[in-house]
């Protein structure tokens, strides 16, 4: 099976004069000539936009009127490249999605790199290009950034922090504390893809078909839903670390409501299901990087589902549950056998079982 998780660096042609240094050296973070070359020959061509081009100490831009949303996230994933994505794509999409589920239209991002001495420049270029591609797809601009280099052994190749700013859509008021009794819970697609993609690469597990991360920017999908049923949407979240279970538990607590889901209705890809079974993991706790959950007034739920399914990222969207006044602050699942179980928040990482 061809491994399409890592890019092919053999054909990479290094723009002069980066060729002199095929790996990151301490000087690339020193604020001198090497650092400037990195900006001029790598970051600027990849991210090019007017706010960045001035290369000032701060990016200056107009945002128009209205309320703003701001978010930041750091990315330390290993491996840096995995089926369906890379740390670069995650760094852009993660922050874009945090803004989008807050009801904002993402506009501008910052990008900060912490690089380890010895990190191959070709890999950095691939990471940066993945960021540029993700930013273009999401329609956001990377307007300012920073690079620091740490000594060999003090980092894990490449860490990225991004922060983002977006403009809240007028008339939209969503939040984790706004789920109402009677709301319908929708998820935009299959769960557990990202976490199992990472785990299968990291642990060298091979399955019949490769599991791909769902890493994607959700602002387009979310905009469609808000255009169609905006005021009926009470809560949106992207269930990343801790998976769907942690996100739904957080919402149940913040809104002081009970959430009931039907296990049979959860979209789980068969290869993810198999991998989870093999390792003794539960897909409801496995991370996603391109999914959103929506809490929508019941009378608008069908319309919202229709809109989700019409979008390329929402074709497998599903109605998975409802909000109830019973068992406040708890997530209860109806099992395939018709019994009920509580799905609690996971303490730490899920641990593969002995047998």
């Amino acid at each position, binding site marked *: 099976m061809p491994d399409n998780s890592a890019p092919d660096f053999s054909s990479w042609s290094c723009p002069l004069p980066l060729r002199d240094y095929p790996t990151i050296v301490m000087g690339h973070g020193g604020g001198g000539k090497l650092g400037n070359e990195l900006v001029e020959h790598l970051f600027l061509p990849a991210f090019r936009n007017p706010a960045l081009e001035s290369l000032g100490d701060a990016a200056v831009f107009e945002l128009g009127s209205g309320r703003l949303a701001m978010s930041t996230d750091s990315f330390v994933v290993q491996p840096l490249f995995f089926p369906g994505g890379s740390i670069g794509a995650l760094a852009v999409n993660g922050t874009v999605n945090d803004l989008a589920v807050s009801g904002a239209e993402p506009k501008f991002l910052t990008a900060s790199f912490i690089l380890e001495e010895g990190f191959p420049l070709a890999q950095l270029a691939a990471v940066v290009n993945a960021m540029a591609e993700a930013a273009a797809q999401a329609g956001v601009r990377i307007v300012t950034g920073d690079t620091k280099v740490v000594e060999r052994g003090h980092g894990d190749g490449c860490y990225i922090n991004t922060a983002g700013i977006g403009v809240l859509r007028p008339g939209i008021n969503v939040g984790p504390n706004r789920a109402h009794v009677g709301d319908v819970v929708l998820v935009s697609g299959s769960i557990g893809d990202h976490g199992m993609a990472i785990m299968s690469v990291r642990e060298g597990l091979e399955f019949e078909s490769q599991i791909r991360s769902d890493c994607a920017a959700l602002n387009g999908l979310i905009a469609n839903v808000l255009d169609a049923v905006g005021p009926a949407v009470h809560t949106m979240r992207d269930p990343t670390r801790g998976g769907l279970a942690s996100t739904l538990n957080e919402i149940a607590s913040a809104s002081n409501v009970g959430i009931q889901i039907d296990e049979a209705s959860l979209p789980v890809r068969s290869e993810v299901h198999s991998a989870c079974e093999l390792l003794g993991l539960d897909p409801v706790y496995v991370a996603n990087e391109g999914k959103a959950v929506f809490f929508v007034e019941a009378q608008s739920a069908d319309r919202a589902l229709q809109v989700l399914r019409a979008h390329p990222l929402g074709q497998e969207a599903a109605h998975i549950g409802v909000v109830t006044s*019973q*068992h406040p602050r708890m997530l209860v699942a109806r099992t395939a056998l018709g019994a*009920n179980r509580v799905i609690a928040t996971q303490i730490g990482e899920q641990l593969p079982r002995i047998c």
Partner: protein
Amino acid sequence: MKYLNEFRDGEIAQRMAREICQIATRPWKIMEICGGQTHSIIRNGIDQMLPPGIEMIHGPGCPVCVTPLALIDKALAIAAQPGVIFCSFGDMLRVPGTDADLFQIKGRGGDVRVVYSPLDAVELAIKNPDKQVVFFGVGFETTAPANAMSVHLANRRGLKNFSLLVSHVLVPPAIEAIMSSSENKVQAFLAAGHVCSVMGFWEYPPLADKFEIPIIVTGFEPLDLLDGIRRAVIQLENGQHHVENAYERIVTYAGNLEAQRLLAEVFELTDRSWRGIGVIPESGWRLNDNYRAFDAEERFQISGIHTEESQLCKAGDVLRGAIKPADCPAFGKECTPRHPLGATMVSSEGACAAYFNYGRFLSADELAAAGAVHAR
């Protein structure tokens, strides 16, 4: 057939549950041996489907739970040593020793790694000739063949830097101990399907005869478990007591002979201390004289360990089936998966963790009320 959903069919499950209701005329107490079965029963809510008189008692078959505290402390002491790569299956990492767990040892600089097979640990030993690689080999008969294979391979390759911290335990002596206890309430057993996939079930007919109990070799999926329970109830109602195989797609009478040959080559019977239960004679395996050189306890000679069990923890009573997890005064209060006092709250196979995670501290009324909304 993919073996993923075929044995989870809700309609067939409901039909089997109704059949059990029709057969059962009296209350019966049935023990599922294996923690994996406990997990599946609670996760799928199978106990909620049974008639009120049929009580499932959760057995001691959770390797994480019955591994003695002294051995956990020994593992922590070895893992903390410089120059050691300590490998373990994931769910041993959070098991509390007297003062710490393996996660904390890792945080303090110990090289602790989660592996998916003991053979991965052998690979690590080959790649790191300047390190001592130790694999924490716990478990029942199910995990024993892979552990045996690891020392077999290490021996064949002449590895001097691989060892096994081994504490294998066996199901038949545990059944014997439970049935011999004066406070025993168990009337039938669901034998652990995966254990039997290795060992077969030739060991069980003498136990069924001696204690006059039905023993049903049972799998782990909802329909497997319901079938095992159904067969146990039929035998109990008819006053029968023999061994039945309800896991025929995996288990044969003789078992995996190749694995059994390997086990005999590497291990020998030994008395084992079971956490919360005590010493059961000839209830485990250790490395035999030919492989003693690969025994981490011999290699590291850890001494001066002071072990102390929590005074509050009633894990022993839970493992013997004497109480249900929620009957323990510390359950859900001092003892939660976040701050486990005993191993039964750590492993997802542990009865306490299964009860806590799947919300069995709710009353039946509360859970039934939850179902009312689903029935919309």
